[in-house]
């Protein structure tokens, strides 16, 4: 399972970085979005992978890691998701404005990118 | 839990998952969009409905944590599925993916324009 998760992270980073290195603002946004998935999964994994033990305490079950997974990485991922969302929103609007103002959706604002 | 209930649950599970599968199968198997549109929207509602009933009964009879609220999911699905289907169909029509008959009387619906003859015919 760990290998599967790592490979998924690797693939997401690969796709994300490749798209992040493209010249069009929208591709860049797609890349950053994929990267943020990868990041979230990685932070999430820092609590290790535990199936079927959500950290919502139930009566009569001892509140230990034997019955519940580590809740902290989940809280971190939540924060990360929210922040990534905020950043994505700003980037999209910025891409729109840059496109409208500079007449190109090339990240450098002109069709012929510098070499 | 009585045997009857258990059998009932097993049947519900079987029927539900079977319909879910059929819906998805139709999605893969059928050859054009408007045909595919039928499979999932229907089978899923019934399939998921059965599974939800099974789940509610299961949680109720197993005594640990009765969950009648899961029925609300079904309720939501019954409201939203038609909206989804309606929107997807309209999207399909806007791309002229199938012929539609002339409206009897006056042609009014401006959002589904005439299909020109040279339009590409998308079939698999």
């Amino acid at each position, binding site marked *: 399972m760990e290998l599967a998760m790592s490979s998924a992270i*690797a693939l997401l980073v690969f796709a994300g970085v490749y798209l992040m290195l493209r010249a069009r603002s929208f591709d860049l946004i797609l890349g950053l979005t994929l990267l943020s998935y990868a990041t979230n999964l990685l932070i999430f994994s820092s609590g290790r992978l535990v199936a079927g033990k959500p950290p919502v305490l139930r009566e009569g079950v001892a509140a230990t890691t034997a019955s519940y997974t580590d809740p902290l990485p989940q809280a971190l991922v939540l924060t990360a*998701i929210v922040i990534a969302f905020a950043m994505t929103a700003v980037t999209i609007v910025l891409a729109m404005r840059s496109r409208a103002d500079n007449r190109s959706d090339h990240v450098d604002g002109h069709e012929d990118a510098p070499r | 839990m009585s045997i009857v209930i258990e059998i009932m649950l097993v049947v519900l599970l079987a029927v539900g998952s079977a319909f879910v599968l059929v819906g998805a199968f139709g999605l893969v198997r059928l050859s054009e969009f408007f045909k595919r549109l039928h499979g999932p929207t229907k089978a899923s509602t019934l399939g998921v409905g059965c599974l939800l009933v099974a789940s509610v009964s299961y949680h109720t009879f197993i005594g640990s944590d009765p969950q009648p609220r899961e029925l609300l999911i079904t309720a939501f699905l019954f409201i939203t599925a038609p909206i989804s289907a309606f929107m997807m169909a309209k999207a399909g029509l806007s791309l002229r993916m199938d012929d539609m008959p002339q409206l009897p009387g006056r042609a009014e619906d401006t959002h589904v324009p005439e299909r020109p003859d040279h339009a590409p015919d998308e079939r698999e």
Partner: protein
Amino acid sequence: MLELLLATPFVLALLVGLLPASRRRLAAWLAGMAPVIGLVLLALLTSLVLDEGAARSSREWIPGLGLAFSLRLDGLAWMFAGLVLGIGGLIVLYARYYLSQEDSMPRFLSLLLLFMGAMLGMVLAGNLLLLAVFWELTSISSFLLIGFWHHRSDARDGARMALVITGAGGLALLAGVVMIGNIVGSYELDVVLASGELLLAHPLYPWVLVLVLAAVFTKSAQFPFHFWLPQAMAAPTPVSAYLHSATMVKAGVFLLARLHPALAGSDLFFYLVSSVGAVTLLVGSWYAIFQHDLKGLLAYSTISHLGLITLLLGLGSPMAVVAALFHIINHATFKASLFMAAGIIDHETGTRDMRRLGGLRRLMPITATLAILASLAMAGIPLLNGFLSKEMFFAEALAIQGHDVLRTGIPVAALLFGAFGMAYSLRFVHDTFFGKGPRAVKGEVHEPPLFMRVPVALLVLACLAVGIAPGPTIGAALEIAARGVLGDAVPAYSLSIWHGFNLPLAMSAAGVLAGIALYFGLRRLFDLHAVVIRATGHRLFRLNIDSLLRNAQRATKAIANGSLQRSMVWLVLAAVAAGAAPYLASWPEGGPPVPDLAFGQPMGRLEWVLWVLLVGSTLMTLAHYRQRLLAVIVMGGVGLAVSLNFVALSAPDLALTQLLVEMVTLSLLLLGMHYLPATSPTERSLPRRLRDGAIAAVAGLGTGALAYSMMSREPVGIAEELLARSLPEAWGANVVNVILVDFRGFDTFGEITVFGIAALVVHAMLRRARMAPEAVMPGPPVKLPVPADLAQIMFPLTLTVSIFLFLRGHNAPGGGFIAGLTLAVPLLIQYVIQGATSVESRFGFDYIRLVASGLAIAALTGLAAMLFGLPFLTSGHYDLVLPLLGTIPLASAAAFDLGVYLVVFGGTMLMLSMMGTLKPSRLLEARTGVIDPARRSPLTAEVD
């Protein structure tokens, strides 16, 4: 008193500088007071210098850096201070009449006083760091003075060059001084001067010496840094007379003399200083002959005389030091008067070109007499002061001990110096005051105002007085100065004009004769007036600076070329390097870093399905990225897969949040796509794609490997304690939510701030934006009455669910963030189905204030804890018991979560409504294409 002496010019500089440009007379009077007061103070201090060797005062500035405001007036400083103040006074008087109406008198005099103060400070400094401070201050103020006529490009160039060269020297000095301080352990001059042996013996001594000499040579215009001085002649003449003859250029030799006790005495010092001095002396005097510009000639002559002084100091013998000091005074007097005379000529004739001048002795006899006398002093003719120090120099040159080359070379150089000096002095006199002319000069030429001549006359008088009666006039002063450098080692010497017929006298005579022959011979042989010898130094310098600037521009443009992709590539590469380096470094020992693949929990069926879902969607997103709509749809699969992974791996809250955010992000992307091209163009460069692919692959593999390596070790977190304390201390069963609103509530606090700001940013960027969609479908907006009606049933129910999720969040999956989005999404669907205007007209919340309220509520909830003397964000809990209704648990965390709820809802709605209700741009409308529905491809929903 020392402080007062130093402060006077600065205070007056400030006062003068604040005067309006029209108050010329007042400015001159005020400025004149500075040297007068200074001289009086200096005179009062003289006895102290005589009695105790030096007057001292010290004040702390920055003890931590060894920088103290200590002043020290010893003999050397006394002499220089006298020079600075005395000539300074004459210059002020001269400048009063020299400056024209267009030039701002207060500005000029203020800068002049600033320079005077800097020079005084350098001279008086009793701390090497303080000396360095004032040293650079002289550079800065001289830069401003040289560039006084900044409308002239030669003035700007000259000023820039002077600052760059002397500034570089200043940096070297700073380095040298810090080194000295490190070696000696103090920057106090008294300590440093007493540590000569320590310094000489130190392995870093050569470095110290080279650095200090770099400062000396640049400031005193020694070869090969001499070229800035002629360029600085673009300055107004008072500046040249003051800075470039009497004071600033002497700062270098002053420093040499100042540190003589500490640094001199080594072979390196001897060879380096004397040879540089000798070369400078020859180069300067030779070039001087061929200058057509009066001031140019004087400048090169100055270089040559500075070379002489440097050479003398380099020789190092006590007598040579005395000669150097004597020549410093003599040179200052005759050269300053010559510059002023040149200024007068320029002032009256409008030119300084000797080829156009001539015969001025008839038109301005007094000035001519004065200038001729000063020139003769410069040439070293007996009965004038220049002769005396020249004789001393010749005597020292002949007495050199050391290497053969120097033993013969220096006397030869001395002889040549005498001859060349005579030649250019003759040229100055002959070409200006005798012969035909002047030609093509402005108006009528006559004597300048009386007070413009007075300073010249006073200086020439001094030349004569010293030249005729050196003992009574200068003897005492020279003695004081020499004692300042040499201490008790001052040699016995006699200051008289006649030492009998000796070798130096013969050399003098030979030099004079050779000079006369040289001048007239040169004139005859090849027309002196036509010869233009260009000193290469400044051209080389300018070339270098120009190419430096050009190359800097080119390099900067090439490196920071404004390409985002380049920044990104470097970021990824840096990250890859940082991640891989430790593994690569440990490779030799432990073999290649292969993770233990056997580790791991078995994969369940669901996990496999989710893995396939995730991997498949990701790959397809990548494959379709150029068709943006397809990429966005397929990426929805990635999001769903990630959410389901969270579900499978015990994180329901995450799954919920991810799903909701997914939904809103999708909407934002689609809203944005309306204003962006539908596709990305094909990239031409295959190597580029391969390169990026390789980089991405390495980054991916690296991240994956790190992640695997992390996951395959024992968990070390703080989960146990969080789980154990969640319910009893934070009254919440959903530990993730407890962390969000309690344990790490401050993170959430920051997070909602980020979210709120993001919404504000979107609002700010779009509020006044007018944009044209990339392409539009024909026809009016679509009406969707059936979905609209059905969605209306949804809305109250989702509102209920939202409240449910909010209230239960502390004990079950949910919470403020999720609830906020749950409320926003159905509204979004309303926007989509019914159109923005119809929703906004009925649902007009002030979303901005909603965000602000949310932030305020969260903050105030946190503040409430302070009332109980507890830290910010400490949670509280109270069970409210009501009749009939039973116990209602109230938690402050819920209030905090309410803030979250409001911010999230308000922020999301603000973004969506801003993006949904953009005003079209009239200007850009023309660019918008109308799509022919028939030409759209069902495969991409775009026109191919």
